[in-house]
């Protein structure tokens, strides 16, 4: 039995599915549940993920069967059938994905066979089962991509020796997914590779259909997207590697060397050039950074994808002292084990629980004249950590879901440019206090 959650930093599988679909070019959701689910869940990322907003056909535009009491009693497949037919008539898409919610699953609606009727008629309609009790938003991401790549798209015949797919970053629940993917794409392209990132505005439906012919899948997560990549390999024969999201020059140098090695390419010219640029900027900022003594103790409170990259960046590039790293997504023991290494992780979700743990790990001074506390402190977490930071007199930057105190467009923290952005944002918060 899983426990109750305080202010969960994720939602249900349907939420993750809808957030994922909303960023896939040409893909249309058909939500098989009440009218409320679609709107409520879309809003949670539209406002809670740096104001991601609505896409081509998401949020209040997303088709939904809108089941009511009648369907709960008599079954909702007729309503779904009508909704799909009219969606095909009204909405222009390349692939339609029926995503179910709790109540239609509980009453046993067979959405898949309804979708199959349309598929048999030649319409691109598939169904995924995404009730909350199947998992949270991160699972929703995997369920949708699994259905598209490992079920809908035919087995790949040919292989593009230069093509890679990027998995692991979850739209909305990784608030900087677009900026991060743009930087990864930019860097891998400069190595001479072609890159499918799927979720950025530059991508098209062709990036989805070409994915099975990729030579390598890169999973930028130790936790999410791995099962997907395993099944992808079984179906299409594409191997995968798992990497942390590289943030800052040291991690990105390593990442590029690893990928270049895999393809038998030389990463050094790219690494040299990128480091020259990075340090060209970083060096000049050293005056402010050091004269103003911007050295901090740091606590990170993020999902599993950002936890290690962030701790590493703060430690290795900024020379900060990371005292706690909290991972806020709900993980299995195996997933937790995958996150072990140089940066010890603590697994807690509730805002209150985490605040309590921080106070326990690092008691505040009780008025002693000499007291070795963790000041100055920087808490890098979600917007929910703002109060915790205020209570500790700490600086605070929101980087993890939910983020509602800043608007995010193409900003990302991955790679070299992302490293500079993160540096700017962290120090900028300190500068803004000076006002």
């Amino acid at each position: 039995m899983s426990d109750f959650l305080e202010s969960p930093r994720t939602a249900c599988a349907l939420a993750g599915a809808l957030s994922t679909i909303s960023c896939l070019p040409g893909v249309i959701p058909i939500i098989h549940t009440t009218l409320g689910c679609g709107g409520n869940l879309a809003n949670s990322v539209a406002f809670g993920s740096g104001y991601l907003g609505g896409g081509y056909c998401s949020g209040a535009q997303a088709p939904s069967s809108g089941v009511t009491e009648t369907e709960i009693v008599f079954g909702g497949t007729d309503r779904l059938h009508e909704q799909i037919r009219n969606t095909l008539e009204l909405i222009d898409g390349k692939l339609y994905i029926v995503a179910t919610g709790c109540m239609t699953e509980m009453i046993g609606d067979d959405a898949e066979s309804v979708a199959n009727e349309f598929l048999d008629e030649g319409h691109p309609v598939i169904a995924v089962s995404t009730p909350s009790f199947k998992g949270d938003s991160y699972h929703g991401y995997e369920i949708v991509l699994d259905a598209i790549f490992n079920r809908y798209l035919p087995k790949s015949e040919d292989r593009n020796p230069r093509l890679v797919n990027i998995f692991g970053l979850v739209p909305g629940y990784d608030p900087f997914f677009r900026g991060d993917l743009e930087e990864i794409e930019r860097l891998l392209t400069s190595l001479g590779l072609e890159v499918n990132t799927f979720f950025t505005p530059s991508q098209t439906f062709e990036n989805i259909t070409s994915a099975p012919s990729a030579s390598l899948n890169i999973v930028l997560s130790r936790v999410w997207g791995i099962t997907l990549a395993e099944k992808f390999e079984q179906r299409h024969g594409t191997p995968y590697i798992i990497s942390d999201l590289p943030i800052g020059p040291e991690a990105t140098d390593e990442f590029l060397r690893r990928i270049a090695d895999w393809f038998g390419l030389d990463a050094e010219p790219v690494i040299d050039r990128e480091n020259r640029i990075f340090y060209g900027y970083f060096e000049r900022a050293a005056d402010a950074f050091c004269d103003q003594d911007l050295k901090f103790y740091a606590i990170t409170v993020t999902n599993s994808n950002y936890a290690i990259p962030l701790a590493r960046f703060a430690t290795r590039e900024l020379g900060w002292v990371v005292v706690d790293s909290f991972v806020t997504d709900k993980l299995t023991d195996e997933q937790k084990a995958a996150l072990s290494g140089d940066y010890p992780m603590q697994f807690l979700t509730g805002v209150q629980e985490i605040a309590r743990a921080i106070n326990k790990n690092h008691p505040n001074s009780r008025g002693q004249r000499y007291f070795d506390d963790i000041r100055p402190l920087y808490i890098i977490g979600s917007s929910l950590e703002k109060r915790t930071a205020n209570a500790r007199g700490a600086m605070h930057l929101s980087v993890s879901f939910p983020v509602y105190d800043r608007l995010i467009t193409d900003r990302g923290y991955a790679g070299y440019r992302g490293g500079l952005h993160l540096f700017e944002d962290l120090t900028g918060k300190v500068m803004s206090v000076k006002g």
Partner: protein
Amino acid sequence: MGYYEQSVPPVRDTRLKIGDSYYGDACGLVDCGREGCLLQKNRGFWQANACQMALTLMMAATVENSAIVVHAPGGCGALLHSLSVQSAKGRARRGKEPKPVPWLSTNLTEADVIGGGEKKLLETIKYADREFRPEIIFVVVTCAPSIIGDDTEEVVRQVRSQVSADVVSLYCPGFRSRVVASAYDAFYHGILRGLELSPKPWVDYRPLPQGSPDAELAEENYRFEKSRTVNVWNATSIGPGDEEEVRRLLTALGLKVRFFAEYSSRDELRMVSEAALNVSMCNVHDDYMLKFLEEKFGTPYVIAGMPIGFRHTRQWLVSIAERFGLEKQANALADYEEKLAKEAIEPFVEQVRGKKVLICGGVVRVGAEATMLAELGLHVLGIRAYHYDDGAEPVFEDVGRNLPDTPVAVSNQLFELTHQIKTLKPDIVIAHNGTQGYIAKLGVPSVQLWSVDSPFFGYTGTYRILRRIVFELKNTSYRERLSRHVRLPYRPEYFEGDAFKYIRD
């Protein structure tokens, strides 16, 4: 057994004649509502929207010193992240501490769905009480526990003796009603059953011994004060600026004004019974609560539309004033206010005269706003109400008298809105929060139908909305440029046919 005695409230659909799919005019809508044909109408294509749980959470998140337990699978409470920010802002603007509302999800899993989630609910409520020490714990009962038949009322009954907070159940499963406004009843049902609504001796006042010389005078004083006190019932769509305007006007009539139930605390809510009159600011918000208060405490109530625009504001004020024998004063106040406001709006009226406007949002507000703007010389191209029920009848009778030929739709559907905007080509759209981005992408100027940042009610509200329309029209470049780069998901053929083709009887 009446509705108020039942643990689970009725949804609007059972209590009133209601609908969310209609196209025609105001008179036709009123008739269709009365005859019940509205009940039969439905759509063959729907787009996602909100549910009664969303609005219930929105209201609960505003109540002071409360915690929310969402009894649901993990996804249902997710929008509380944004609601919490909104209510923190509402608190700040009312001079209260802008702290977010703590909330928990019972996070029902497959095992709970099979075995029942009652034990988990009990634990979660106890944890919320221990950890946050709230005055009120709202237990929000959603679709899943309603379908599996969790006896949440029994859990709440048991837990009451084990926690220090008052526990209030809010039943709002989304599948029971497609009409979001059902949330008002769900919320008020919880409040009226779960909280004390009259003052407690020694806590709220010090009883004087009978026959003491002070007692009679004190009682007389109190009776007089109560006879001049009105409770005004707010809602999220009624911002602090609206409350200020209403307070200003009613205070000018010598009345003492208190606002309930949003942004009230448990202690403040115990004063609900101590008023001479309950006043609604919207026909479809609070009739359920006001009827209860009349039944329980004998407090009469006034439901007289929304104080939007000169005519409606005067009518609203006079309806209240009548109860205190103050009609003359109310009319004099309205005369005075109108004189000042007319001068103030004159330059704006010139600039908006003849502008074509489409109005969309809550049923009472769109009706009131439409007649107001028409009276100021704008051309109302169409009215779109999110839902319709009996409560809105007087408003749409008024619309029918004043704008008999204006198209009226009952629709919260974006595809129909998009069609109407593309084919009717309004100069400006006045629309509900949550749709502004979609309208901007069509390249059309729009302003909020309501916002918590500024008043829309009374005289300052009239001034403000006209000023905002003029402001909007001063520079429309953002939208024009944006719209050139946005691709709509709808097939072009749809815009050549009937906007409401998917509505069926």
